[in-house]
């Protein structure tokens, strides 16, 4: 039983960066911008966060630095796709590649460096509950923040006026423009916010999860977060659950290997991707559902003059 509790704990930690990045991308996509540069933003944020944590010893500064780095790169991306109307897919890919190389270049001196030791986190009373304690309450605060973020995002998107405007822009920027909203500025705001969230996820990876920096640390998690957002049909709860599902099956496949289960490790390594795609595709298989939830202007550029 203890092993299951530990597995749940590992799932929460493993799924958190995916969840945070996924929700940042959700914000982008609800506004109609497809951000393929997520991986690059996570990478520059990871090195920014690691560098900040290494030089100042403060986790908070590290997360702020990560958010700033992700936000900056997102701002550049936003300027390109929103004002210069470059193709969103191509620009996003270019940003990802740039982020990979730039982070590797800047991070050269930080490879092999070690961060100061941090004490284990736990929620004061709840962590002592026999099974649930180690499973749920011995996590880094960012794990709980991710869950809080999901609720905040739901409130923002579906219960606030600002969120309504954002969704409107994502559905039909022309109509929103006709109503007098500054479509491009609001879109830029969404892109920067989403990039900052990807940045927080990236910093979490380099400062908390695998506390070291190497080139390519993010190892494709940005792309997984992107896929998650799509498979979860742009619903925040499903993004969070999908992230935990992916993280959980990843840890499960390692646990199975360690237990000596008689299945090829390559097949087990495929499991996280398979499981996430299958489950999310099943729960979102209603085509009408997809039509309702997908922002209609996703990926299309907007010209205010037309």
């Amino acid at each position, binding site marked *: 039983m203890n092993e299951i509790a530990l597995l749940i704990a590992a799932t929460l930690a493993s799924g958190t960066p995916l969840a945070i990045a996924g929700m940042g991308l959700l914000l982008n996509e609800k506004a109609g911008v497809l951000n393929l540069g997520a991986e690059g933003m996570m990478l520059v944020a990871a090195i920014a966060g690691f560098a900040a944590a290494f030089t100042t010893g403060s986790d908070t500064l590290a997360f702020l630095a990560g958010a700033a780095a992700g936000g900056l790169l997102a701002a550049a991306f936003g300027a390109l796709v929103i004002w210069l109307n470059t193709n969103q897919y191509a620009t996003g890919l270019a940003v990802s590649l740039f982020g990979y190389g730039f982070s590797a270049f800047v991070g050269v001196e930080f490879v092999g460096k070690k961060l100061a030791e941090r004490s284990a986190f736990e929620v004061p009373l709840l962590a002592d509950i026999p099974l649930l304690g180690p499973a749920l309450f011995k996590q880094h605060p960012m794990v709980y923040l991710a869950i809080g973020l999901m609720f905040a995002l739901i409130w923002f998107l579906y219960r606030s006026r600002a969120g309504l405007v954002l969704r409107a822009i994502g559905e039909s920027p022309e109509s929103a423009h006709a109503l007098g909203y500054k479509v491009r500025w609001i879109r830029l705001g969404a892109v920067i916010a989403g990039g900052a969230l990807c940045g927080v996820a990236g910093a979490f990876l380099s400062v908390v999860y695998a506390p070291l920096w190497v080139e390519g*640390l993010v190892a494709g998690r940005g792309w997984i977060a992107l896929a998650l957002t799509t498979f979860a049909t742009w619903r925040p709860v499903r993004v969070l659950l999908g992230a935990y599902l992916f993280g959980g099956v990843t840890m499960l496949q*390692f646990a199975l290997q360690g237990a000596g289960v008689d299945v090829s490790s390559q097949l087990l390594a495929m499991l996280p991707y398979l499981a996430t795609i299958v489950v999310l595709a099943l729960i979102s298989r209603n085509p009408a559902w997809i039509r309702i939830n997908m922002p209609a202007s996703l990926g299309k550029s907007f010209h205010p003059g037309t």
Partner: protein
Amino acid sequence: MLTFNKRSLLRWGGFACLASAAALVGCGKKEEPAKPAAQAAPAAAPKAEPFKAAWVYVGPVGDAGWTYAHDVGRKAVEAEFGDKVKTTFVEKVPEGADAERVIRDLAAQGNKIIFATSFGFMEQMVKVASEFPDVRFEHATGYKTAPNLRIYDAKFYEDAYLAGVVAGSVTKTNTLGFVASFPIPEVLRNINAFTLGAQSVNPKVKTKVVWVSSWFDPPKESEAAQSMINGGADVLLQNTDSSAVLQTAEKNGKFAFGWDSDMSTVAPKAHLASCVVIWDGYYKKAVKEAMDGSWKTERTVWGVKEGQNALAKIADFVPEAAKKKVDEVKAGMKAGTFEVFTGPIHGTDGKEMLAKGVMADQGWKDKVDFYVKGVEGKIPSGK
């Protein structure tokens, strides 16, 4: 008229790119005379040209692991030969078509000996070696040779065995963990040696293995280590190149080893010892042979005896009995009387793989494709 639109940006951007490319090419020509545009080295040299040696690395020099150790060896060559040798290296070369281009480039630039430091460079080395008969090629951990291509390796399994002796003495749960990269004989030898070493002091030991399908992926190595710790392992070893496993062990209050280089500073509480490889001696010998003409195709596998492998920085808190046993085994290795793979050795199904008293020869060791009894799980098929 300065307009900020896509067209004008593209125009100015294009000019800027062309200008900077021209500047870079111009500067490049001045600062790096060692990279001639033409093929062979200049024929008429006023004084002796330094002997050029090149290294091809699969990872970054800063990995503080596999590639770092090779680079230390390269620097030892520079220190030994001074002006007579000029070394270069290319790092982070992916195993594949890119590697072929890099190796061919280095040969064309006048390097007379090229070391490729990863198994995955094998086919590319064979191909380029056939095109440059005057250049000597050395491939680490491979098995294909040619008149101008030879192979070298280290006895990592001796380090793994010594680590196993320490692990078997320190473990409280009698469960060890191994984070493994790919199921090739080298890795299987290490897993088996680790287990055999542990069993020599603690016959009840079992080893869990998790495959991460990569030589270097710190987050994945962390996850693999964490899952084995969750499953009860309290001493870990890895043959992947980063310190992630050590750090995960420290986070959980368990123990682990450094691999490829001295990782004692990374996790002082968890670090039991580091399995190191010291390429200095071999690289100096190889370059010397290439320079004085005594280089010939052969296979060199050095280990503890020649000072190429060692178990370094054994922690103070390791029990004295374990340290004594390690010294005993080391002395046997140095004297040539101790062989890690000495029978009886049985596979997980009980089948006898090596008869009692028989010391395995190189051929047996090259073809290891099984787990010894005590290792849990099944070997994934394929590479």
